[in-house]
């Protein structure tokens, strides 16, 4: 028969340390946030899908389909920026601050390039398209996504500036969490990109 004290020791032993628990909580919390908030993007995809039924064809008659060339390049840039964030995070974990700053700088540049293309596409929706839900839902979706990208890019910039001054070392949730927010932006865009440019 185990005594109370033994059980208590065992219980203590089985409890993670405060720091471990916090990291575990942050990671799970982030995952749930990502799962949750991606639902808004799915809701917008459903909006796009349901509004297609208002028209006999999609894009509606007389509206030229969006050219996927520039957005595809921007999507590649976004994917690459996510990859660079990841590599920067790994560099920081193994203690190479210079590697972190270099990669995150590249990621931010690619992120800005992506957003510039999105702004260009948003502004240049034809009047014919804007007269139908084809153009309106495109602006809704890209605009909604842009708002998230902009906010999270600001977070990346903030973390980058602190990180480049050597504020973070090794395992850092601020850096990891920021990168994960950008992965979220990337995934959300991949969904929108597919729906907007490829599903006719």
């Amino acid at each position, binding site marked *: *028969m*185990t*005594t*109370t004290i033994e*059980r*208590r020791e*065992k*219980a*203590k032993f*089985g*409890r993670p340390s405060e720091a471990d*628990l916090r990291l*575990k*909580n942050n990671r*799970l*919390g982030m995952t*749930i*946030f990502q*799962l*949750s*908030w*991606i*639902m*808004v993007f*799915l*809701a*917008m995809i*459903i*909006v796009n899908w*349901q*509004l297609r*039924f*208002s*028209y006999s064809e999609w894009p*509606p008659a007389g509206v030229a389909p969006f050219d996927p060339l520039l957005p595809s390049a921007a999507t590649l840039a976004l994917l690459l920026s996510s990859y660079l964030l990841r590599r920067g995070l790994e560099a920081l974990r193994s203690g190479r601050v210079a590697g972190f700053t270099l990669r995150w700088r590249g990621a931010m540049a690619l992120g800005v390039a992506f957003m510039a293309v999105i702004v260009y596409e948003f502004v240049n929706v034809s009047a014919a398209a804007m007269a*139908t*839900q084809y153009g*309106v839902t495109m602006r*809704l979706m890209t605009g*909604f996504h842009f708002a998230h990208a902009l906010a999270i890019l600001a977070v990346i910039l903030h973390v980058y500036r602190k990180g480049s001054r050597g504020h973070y070392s090794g395992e850092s949730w601020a850096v990891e969490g920021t990168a994960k927010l950008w992965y979220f932006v990337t995934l959300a865009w991949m969904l929108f990109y597919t729906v907007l440019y490829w599903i006719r």
Partner: protein
Amino acid sequence: MATIAVPLGAEAEGQEADAIKRPALSEYLRWSVDHKIIGVQYGISSFLFFIIGGAMAMLIRLELWSPDLDLMVSGAAYNSLFTIHGTIMIFLFIIPMWAAFGNFVVPLQLGAKDMAFPWLNAFAFWLIPPAAVVVLLGYFVSPAEAGWTSYPPLSTIFSGDGQTLWALGAHLLGISSIMGSINFIVTIFNMRPPEMTIWRMPLLCWAVLATSIIAVMATPFLAGALTLLLLDRVAGTTFFDAAGGGDVLLWQNIFWFYSHPAVYIMVLPGMGVLSEVLSIHSRKPVFGYRMVGLSSMGIAFVGFTVWAHHMFTSLQPELRIPFMITTMIIAVPTGIKMFSWLGTIWGGKIRFTSAMLFALGFLSLFVIGGITGVMLAALPFDIHVHDTYFVVSHFHFVLFGGSVFAIYAALYHWFPKITGRMMNERLGVIHFVFTYLGFLFTFFPMHIVGMLGMPRRVAVYDARFTDWNQLISFSAFVLGFSTFIVIFNVIRSYYRGPIAGANPWRALTLEWQTTSPPPPTNFVDDPIPFEEPYGYGTAASAAYLEAVDEAFGSGAPDGRGGH
């Protein structure tokens, strides 16, 4: 026997029975990251909204005393009144009220020091007051008239700026709800003591987990729908206007994809409360514990597949039958819970405390709400009673007979833990009698007038319904009056109630294995849960409870304890 292990810290041992250490009242008025403070903040503010929303219900019933317009200046004024009534009751009362009990009780039941993200927890709460101000401001600016469901075109072309403010407020409340729910899920998954496997978790935690999963997956759809509504209202888009290529049903689809699961957000925690209260106050293990935990998950899952039953009269005909079937399927996990509750109290040593009375009240009323739900799920019947008082009756049976009765049960059950003092049981019983009878005679006759064809959401009705409506209104006033009894009881008991002790109900879950109210870190030492959360009636549980009494002084000042 090895499980007789409770915190035996020095602080606890030296505690005098009549020296309860409560936070100063001013603590509740400012930013705090303590889940117990936040829980009470949620509770008090939600109850305030319950009173406001209830006062509006009284005005609605006063208007409906006679078949003509008398209290209201116009039908539009009546429309905005029931709109704000529904909005307040759903978004500002029931949903945050469950966050109150979830916040206070869940970390304690898990033996945790706080929620996983204390700061986020406080932030989620403090979004509610500004959101409430925005929504209420809308009522005074130019009120929304579209009902709490805000169907376009009522909410787009036929409502004033109040509708815009309504949407903004609802947006904030949705974000608050998502953040709160993320917190609950992480807390429940990560903060349990190592001895507490998920199959030993109290059923309130199971229910809050299921609720939170629904909230995080469904509430974003509300955010999406509200974004479109705001754009249609202020940016000139036509998402809901067929003339501009939009679709009126788009709102109904997306809104109900949130709001039907939200019905379960409003009632699942109540079901969790019921499992706790019925088991503890009848001194018996929960019947079919695993099935009850899983049925919460089942309801959460099936709840996502039924939304279009709100649109039976507007839906494409070929989609009606599938939604009718899924809606009926949801009666299965709900039925599992019903039978579990009956099995739990069957042959138990039932103590008719106020908490138990309200739990039994829930049981008897929710079953009526559940059965009318199945009736409404049946397509031919639904089309017959569509938009009549039958529907009003159904959802009040579920949301008042269900959620509010569970909220009262939870209040009487956990008040001793929250304040360290017992509620007055005699007043509790009087409160129960008035509430139960008031409720029954308010809402049951609505079935009948609904079947006879009285439409909902109108201030003027056919004179042949007058007698029924006067009975309903009279009972509603009784129901309204009953609220003052509980308010009086809470205030009086807070100052003058008998000292509760750590474990007045002699319960086995962890929130009772610490002082009442618990110290800021909840437990002096890491608590060790009893092997089964509801393992009443065994020698081991009696020994565990005795050890708790030894550590904290004996509870059960009413002398009705048992094991």
